Each structure stands twice: as structure tokens, then as C-alpha cells.
């Protein structure tokens, strides 16, 4: 049984199929990459998994149980946490309280405030934000706000973490750090699905990659297979094989 599995997942916006008949799965302990040109449906797929949107048809199962139709908070409490392409933090709330939202409400268990605080502190420590714990989150740099989102997601004790363009807008050094972080997250037994445009990061981190284009899955395989896939090169990689920060923007 796969940890997460989608069957013929489809989402129409009016006449446009943002995601069309996509079958996908991720196994426990895997790091799955999701790539494709802008507008390929990657973030829409994340929104469908995390229940920000509900699919037009198709079904998504998690640990063998169908999760389509649940509310976002239920998905989170089941163990699927996410970050956002454009950061969504609580700007006037201190950093540590931002993370506490996750540990207090997102674990699926009744958590005391003391326990939630400890968990939040541990998550902050993991992303190296401890020195900034009392600063309002809106005052952080973009890189730190992204780290904060990761900490908030980790504080919910996820089994599966969805990272939406974690590295977009980061410097080279920060990208290297973020790659290390993802490795460590897997080391904690958390399965990861990541959307990314920074090609060397995705090639270096993922076990398997799914390529979307115009809402359809056009390829799937190991990084080595994807790198030489003719269709992928034509529609995506061909633009710029080095894939540096220029196409790392949203």
C-alpha cells in the first residue's frame, strides 16, 4: 500500500483542466519531486491533496483511506502538512506562536499548551530560528519566513510533508542549506513531496520525479531517467538545462 495515492485526479476551473487524470503515489520514506512549467498544475495538485480545493473527479487516498472531501484541518491532523508557494504566515504573531499554531491544533491529538510550546521550540531549533523566536513573523526575511513555514508544518507531526517551491527566491547558499534540511526531514521518517524549479536541487534530492505539463502527467521516473527524457526536455528542461535561479521565480 502506498502512503498517498491519487487515481485519475482531475480539477477543472471553468473550461480549463488545471489537473487532468493524474495518477500518482508516494511511498513511505520517499522524496518525490513534482516539476513542470508554470501553469502545469503542480500547486493545484498540492491544493487538491491538502483539501484547499476539491477535485472535479478522481480520488485521493492516504494510508489506504479515502481523504477526498475532508476539510483542510482534518487533512493536517491526519498527518499531511504543507508549505505555500507564496508564504502564508501570521505576520503580527511572534515566530514561536506561529509555530505553536501547528503544534497546538495540527497534531490530531489533544495537546497542552506547555507540550505545544516545547514542540514549537524544537521545530524552531531544527530550522535555526530560535534566536528570532519572539520577533513578529512579518519582520523576518523571506528565507526565514520559508523556514518558519517548514517549522510550523513540522510542529504538526506530519508523516507527509508537501513543500511548494521552498527554494524559490533563495540564494545559492540558502538552497544548499534547504537541500540539507530536506535530507534531515526524511531522516526523521517524514515522506516529502516537493515542487521545485531549481533543477540541481530537485535532481540532487529526489528519489523519483513526476513531470506535469498542461495538467497532465507526461513523465515519471528517477532523476537520471527524467534528465534524458525527450518529451521533458522539449517542454521544460529544454528551456534552460542548467536550471539556475532565473527560472526559480514562481
Amino acid at each position: 500500500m502506498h502512503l498517498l495515492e491519487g487515481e485519475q485526479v482531475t480539477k477543472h476551473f471553468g473550461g480549463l483542466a488545471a489537473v487532468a487524470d493524474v495518477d500518482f503515489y508516494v511511498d513511505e520514506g520517499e522524496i518525490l519531486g513534482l516539476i513542470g512549467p508554470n501553469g502545469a498544475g503542480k500547486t493545484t495538485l498540492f491544493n487538491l491533496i491538502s483539501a484547499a480545493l476539491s477535485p472535479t473527479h478522481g480520488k485521493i487516498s492516504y494510508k489506504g483511506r479515502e481523504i477526498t472531501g475532508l476539510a483542510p484541518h482534518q487533512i493536517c491532523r491526519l498527518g499531511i502538512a504543507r508549505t505555500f508557494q507564496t508564504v502564508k504566515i501570521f505576520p503580527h504573531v511572534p515566530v514561536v506562536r506561529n509555530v505553536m499554531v501547528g503544534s497546538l491544533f495540527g497534531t490530531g491529538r489533544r495537546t497542552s499548551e506547555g507540550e505545544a510550546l516545547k514542540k514549537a521550540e524544537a521545530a524552531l531549533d531544527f530550522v535555526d530560528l530560535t534566536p528570532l523566536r519572539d520577533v513578529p513573523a512579518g519582520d523576518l526575511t523571506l528565507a526565514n519566513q520559508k523556514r518558519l513555514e517548514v517549522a510550523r508544518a513540522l510542529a504538526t507531526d506530519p508523516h507527509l510533508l508537501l513543500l511548494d517551491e521552498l527554494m524559490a527566491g533563495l540564494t545559492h547558499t540558502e538552497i544548499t542549506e534547504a537541500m540539507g534540511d530536506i535530507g534531515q526531514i526524511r531522516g526523521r521518517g517524514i515522506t516529502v513531496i516537493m515542487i521545485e524549479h531549481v533543477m540541481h536541487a530537485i535532481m540532487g534530492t529526489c528519489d523519483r520525479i513526476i513531470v506535469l505539463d498542461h495538467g497532465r502527467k507526461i513523465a515519471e521516473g528517477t532523476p537520471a531517467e527524467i534528465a534524458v527524457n525527450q518529451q521533458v526536455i522539449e517542454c521544460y528542461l529544454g528551456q534552460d538545462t542548467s536550471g539556475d535561479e532565473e527560472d526559480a521565480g514562481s
Partner: protein
Amino acid sequence: MRTTTFTRTRIVSLVVLAAIFVVLALLPTFYHGYWITEITDILRYAVLTVGWVIFSGPTGYMSLATAAFFGLGFYIAAVFNGPLPFVLVIIISGAIAFIVAMLVGALTLRLRGVYFAIFTFALVLLVNSVVLEVERLVTGTRGRFVEQESTNVAYWAMLIVFAFTLVCAVAIRRSRYGLALQSIGEYEEAAAHSGINVVRTKVLIFATSAFFMGMAGAIIATRRSYIDPGIAFNMNTSFLPVLMAMFGGMGNLVGPVVGAAVFTYLGDYLLSHIPDLFMLIFGVVLILAILFMPNGIIGLAQQAWRKIRGGGGKQLESEPEGGRRAPAGR
């Protein structure tokens, strides 16, 4: 070190609060005059404003439904006061306002921003017409007589309801609901994806705030001999708490109380002394307040205090939650 000064300020403010409450509670035993009525009126608006701030403060959902819940209290008092003891009437009013708010909230709290404000505004008109029609069809009358309570009884009842409202408001702020409401106000989507049941939280706290409004309505109704839907569901009851909260500042709970007190007194004073210019002066004061005191009277006082103390490092308790928020939603 920081914690000790913190607890000391807290103890001092608790003692001051308790002292004020005791003085207010004993006031009618040695004083019988205009101020009993005036303070009842101030407490009424303090209950409505604090009640409004409990939900609308942190979430940024601007509710204009206050008059609906307050007016329901009026009608419940008109029907039940006399046959049932006053205390029970107050509690029933709160409970019915709570239930109506739950139903309304479940329908409307999916709406955001201005749509929510407009719907709650329409709710007052809707309840108003429903009551008007029901009265016309069932009793064939327009208004009702209310079994009156004495000035002092109404005063004490309002004082107790006010204390209760304030304690609940503080408890909600300190509890996990406080953080949940604030994160909903700052970024609802992120709150939902971090595990907060946003619909349930909003509906529950919206209904809780209506509970206090309903109780205040039941008490004020007993100070009038006659009510009709126009009196009970007066739109001013919806707008004034919003203005009072802005005027006082929503960063902490002292702001709404001070805002309600100053505004109520100013309103009554102007109305009785210069009725012709009442609205004009009132309007000017409000515009100035919004322009120059974005964090309300309390924000202004804190700024002054910080200056006096030479900017001593400690932040005042209310600051982190104060003032403006980022727009919710995308």
C-alpha cells in the same frame, strides 16, 4: 526579571480592577442620582463593545449583527419578565442569542470581508421584519409593554453581566482560542492548513459574543415600559460598538471599555447640552480619532507613557496584538 515586573503590574491592575468593581457595586447604597442610570448605560455599551471585540477584534470579521442579538434580548424580556424571574430572563436571552448566532454563523461565516459585514447588517433588518410580522399576525399589535425592574436592580444586573463578559473575554484571549482567532484573522487559509477548524472556531466565538449582547438587551429592556421592533433593533446598536472599539483601541480589553465609557458619556452630554450640534461634534471627534489615533485612546496613552519613561525597553502587554492587520485572504 522581566517576569517579576510583569506579575507585579498584573497584580496591581487586578487590585485596581477589584477596587473599582467594589466601589461600583456599593455605589447605589449611598448614592441615588443620575449617575446610576448613566453608568448602567456605559456598562451596556461596554458589554456590547467587549462582546463585539471578542470575535471581531482578532478575526477582523466586522459583524454588524449586534443590534439583532441585543434586540432579541429586548423581546425575550418583554415576553418572559414577570412570569419568570429576572435572572432567568437574562440567561434565557443570552442563550437564545447564542443559538440564533450559531445558526446565522454557520450560514454566514463562510463569507469574507465586506460580504460578511453586509450580511450581518441585513440580519438585523431581517430579524426586525420577522418580529414585526409575527407581532402583527399573532398579537395584532405593534409594540409590547415590559415588566420593569428598578434602576438599582438593572444597574447591578448590568454590572454583573459586564464583569462576566470581561472575565470571559480575558479567558478566551488567554486560551488556545485566542491564538486560533488571531491566526484566522491574520491568514485564514494558513490557519486551516495548520489544523485549526476555522468554521467551528468562528461560529462558536461569534455565538459566545452574541450571548453577552442578548443579556445586555434583556436588562436594558426592563428600563423601558414600551418597546417595538424599531426600538429593539435600532441599527445604532450595531454601529456604536464598532466605533467605540476603534475609538478606544482593540489591542487589549481596556481600550473597548474606555472607548465605550468616553463615547457613551460624550454622546449623552452633547445630546443633553447642545442637541443641535450633537451629531456634528460627534462626527468630528470620530474622524479625528480615526486619523490621529490608529490604536485608539489606549494606544495613544501607551505612546505617551513610553515617552515619559524614556522608552524603557519593556513592551506593554497589549502591543503585539494591537492595531492593523494584514488583509485576510489572498
